[in-house]
């Protein structure tokens, strides 16, 4: 499965809820304000484990928009919109944590 999260983990509980419901084979894609959770900050530990396993992606265009590309945590993989489409194809059902 592909889980998308489009809100900051500082503002909403959607990333936390996603992490409660993700199985061992699924991945997370951070989009829109969700990319704030890709930056090194007090909430980084939420995603650190999955990122080490290579299971966290962030949308490059949204990272660039917010001026935080130099802050993105190690092991978080950046993809563009074409990469977003590839993830949707590869990982089956998409769950959006809106």
């Amino acid at each position, binding site marked *: 499965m592909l889980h998308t999260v489009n809100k900051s983990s500082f503002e909403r509980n959607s990333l936390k809820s996603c992490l409660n419901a*993700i*199985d061992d084979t699924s991945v997370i894609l951070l989009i829109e304000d969700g990319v704030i959770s890709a930056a090194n900050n007090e909430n980084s530990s939420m995603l650190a484990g999955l990122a080490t396993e290579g299971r966290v992606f962030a949308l490059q265009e949204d990272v660039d928009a917010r001026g935080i590309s130099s802050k993105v945590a190690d092991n978080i993989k950046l993809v563009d919109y074409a990469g977003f489409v590839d993830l949707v194809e590869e990982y089956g059902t998409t769950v959006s944590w809106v």
Partner: protein
Amino acid sequence: MSTKKFMYLNRRAPYGSVYALESLEVVLIAAAFDQDVSLSFIDDGVYQLVEGQNPEGIGMKNFSKTFHALGDYDINQFYVSAESLEERGLSLDDLMPLVWEDEDDDWAEKPSIKVVSNVELTKILSEQDVCLSF
């Protein structure tokens, strides 16, 4: 048409936003399509099922009563997060007693709501073909 597993993921409280109501409107339509329909209620979504809602004072209609009708359309898989209930000081007793009649068991009345752990919810979610988020 082929049969797919559809999950309706409900995470918001009722009335503060329209998502709960308009999710229910889709589920009502879904009943006509002969698919395998499940509903999950997590986070503040559990408040959608709380008994005794009375939105008269805020000028809205009480759409929660519609949940009672879903059993008649074979929509009877309501998965409620145990952790979400507990965090909110709620239990199954606070929720509407939704039931359905099991044709294969002499029309016995059975509960539609299953309180499940996040681990169980994760497994159920992983089996879905389509997930509609509200």
